[in-house]
C-alpha cells in the first residue's frame, strides 16, 4: 500500500510539467505539419532541385537519431553563434524530425487521391496549382488524419528526450525529484502512468478519426 500511496503523492509535483509537454507537442506538431506538407510538395514537384533537397533532408533526418538531433541543436549550434532556449530548441528538434515522417504521410495521401479527379479538375479549367490545393490536398488531409494522430501520440512520448537538453518536462522533473527524495520506484512509476493518462485517450480519438476517414472514402 505504501507504494501506491507514494506514487499518488508524487503526481502533483509531476503535473507541473504537463503544460511544458503540451507546449512542446503542439508547437512541434504545427511546425511538423507545415514543413511536412512543404517537403511532400517538393518531393512530388516537377523541379528536380526541389526534389533533391527534399530527399536529402528526408534521408538525413531519418538516418540519424532524434536524440542526436536535439543534442546537436542545443549544444552544437551555439558554437556557430545560434543559441536557442531549451523549450524552443525542443520544439525545433521535434518539429524538424517529425516533418520528415509526416511528409511521407502527406506524399502517399496525395498520391492516393485518384488521378481521375485531377484530370476532371483540369478539364473543368482548374490550373494545376488550383487542382492541388482545391481538390487533392483537402482529400489527402482526410486520409492523413489517422497517421497524423498516431505520430502526434508518438511525439508526446518523444518529448521525454528533450530532458537531455534541459527542458523541464515530465522526465526531467522526475529526475530532479528523484535526486531530492530517492523515491525512485514511486517517481518513475508515476511518470510512466502520467504518459499513459495522456496518450490513451488520444489513441481512442485516433481510432475514431481513422474510422471517419474510411467511411468518407
Amino acid at each position: 500500500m505504501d507504494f501506491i500511496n507514494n506514487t499518488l503523492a508524487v503526481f502533483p509535483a509531476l503535473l507541473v510539467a504537463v503544460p511544458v509537454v503540451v507546449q512542446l507537442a503542439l508547437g512541434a506538431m504545427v511546425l511538423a505539419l507545415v514543413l511536412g506538407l512543404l517537403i511532400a510538395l517538393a518531393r512530388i514537384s516537377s523541379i528536380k532541385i526541389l526534389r533533391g533537397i527534399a530527399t536529402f533532408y528526408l534521408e538525413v533526418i531519418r538516418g540519424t537519431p532524434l536524440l542526436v538531433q536535439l543534442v546537436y541543436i542545443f549544444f552544437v549550434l551555439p558554437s556557430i553563434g545560434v543559441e536557442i532556449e531549451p523549450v524552443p530548441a525542443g520544439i525545433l528538434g521535434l518539429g524538424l524530425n517529425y516533418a520528415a515522417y509526416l511528409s511521407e504521410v502527406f506524399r502517399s495521401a496525395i498520391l492516393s487521391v485518384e488521378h481521375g479527379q485531377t484530370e476532371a479538375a483540369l478539364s473543368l479549367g482548374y490550373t494545376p496549382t488550383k487542382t492541388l490545393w482545391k481538390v487533392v490536398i483537402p482529400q489527402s488531409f482526410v486520409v492523413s488524419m489517422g497517421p497524423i494522430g498516431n505520430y502526434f501520440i508518438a511525439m508526446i512520448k518523444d518529448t521525454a528526450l528533450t530532458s537531455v537538453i534541459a527542458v523541464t518536462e515530465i522526465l526531467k522533473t522526475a529526475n530532479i525529484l528523484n535526486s531530492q527524495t530517492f523515491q525512485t520506484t514511486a517517481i518513475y512509476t508515476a511518470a510512466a502512468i502520467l504518459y499513459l493518462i495522456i496518450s490513451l485517450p488520444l489513441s481512442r480519438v485516433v481510432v475514431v478519426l481513422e474510422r471517419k476517414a474510411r467511411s468518407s472514402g
Partner: protein
Amino acid sequence: MADDTIINVRDVHKTFVSETKRPLWSRLTGRAHVQKRVEVLKGVDLTVHRGETVAILGSSGSGKSTLLRCINKLETIEAGRIYVNGHLIGYEEKDGELISEKASITAKKRTDIGMVFQQFNLFLNKTALGNVMAPLRDVKKMSATAAREIAIPTLELVGLGDKMENYPSKLSGGQKQRVAIARALAMEPSVMLFDEPTSALDPELVGEVLAVIKKIAQQGTTMVIVTHEMQFAREIADRIVVMDQGVIVEQGPPEAIFTRPQHPKTKALLSRSGMIPRESTDS
C-alpha cells in the same frame, strides 16, 4: 473555315512512349532504358460544327479516346493543330513551331470544353451539389449563391433534384455519371466531350445516362461522343466518325454509315457489334 466551326483538328500526330528498364547486364554495357514507341494518332483531321453531335466509333486501340483527350490537352501532341472556338489548344505558335503555353492559359481555354469521363471522376469529398458548384466557385469565381442558382437547375435537368445532398459513395454509377455531366454542363462550355460515358456502368444503368445525353444533345449542345453503344450513336449522332489504328477511315451521316459502310474496317466493326450481317469478305 466556316464561322460555326467549334472544333478544328488538323493533321494531329500523337505517339506514346513507354520506357522499360533493360536487364542489369545490358544496363552496364549500354543504355539503361529501352523506349517503346506507339503512334496512336497518325494525322487526324476532324471538324465539328456548332450544334452538331458527332459520335466516334472504333475498336479499342483505334485512338478515339486519345483524340478526345488531345482536344482539351489532357494529352500532348507532337504535330498538328487543334482549335476550339478558334483558339489553338495547349500551345502557342511561333514561326510555325508549337511551343507549350502557360498552364493558366490552357486552363482558361479548357473552361470552354466540358468533358465527361468513363470513370465519372467525381470529387469524393463533395456532395452532388458540391461537385457541380465547385468549378463555378473555384474557376468562375462565383459567389455561393450564384453557383447554387446554376447548379440546382442543372442537377434537376439530369434528374437528380432529389439527390443533391448525397455524397458520391451514396450514388449509383448512373447517378454519378449524371452528376459528372451536370458538373461539366454547368460551366456552359461550347462543346461537351464524352469519353465512353457508359462503359463503366452496369447494363441496367446505361439507359438513364444515355437518356440524359440525348436530352442535352436535343437542346443544341455541341458534342463529341466516343462510345461503343452503336445503336445509341445511330439514334443521336448527326455524323458518325470511324477510327482505326490512329486514322479516321470513314465518316458520314449515321444512315449512310450503318446501311452502306464503305471501308472494310467499318464493316468489320459494325458486324462485330451485330449492327450489320457478318460478311464473308471481312478480313
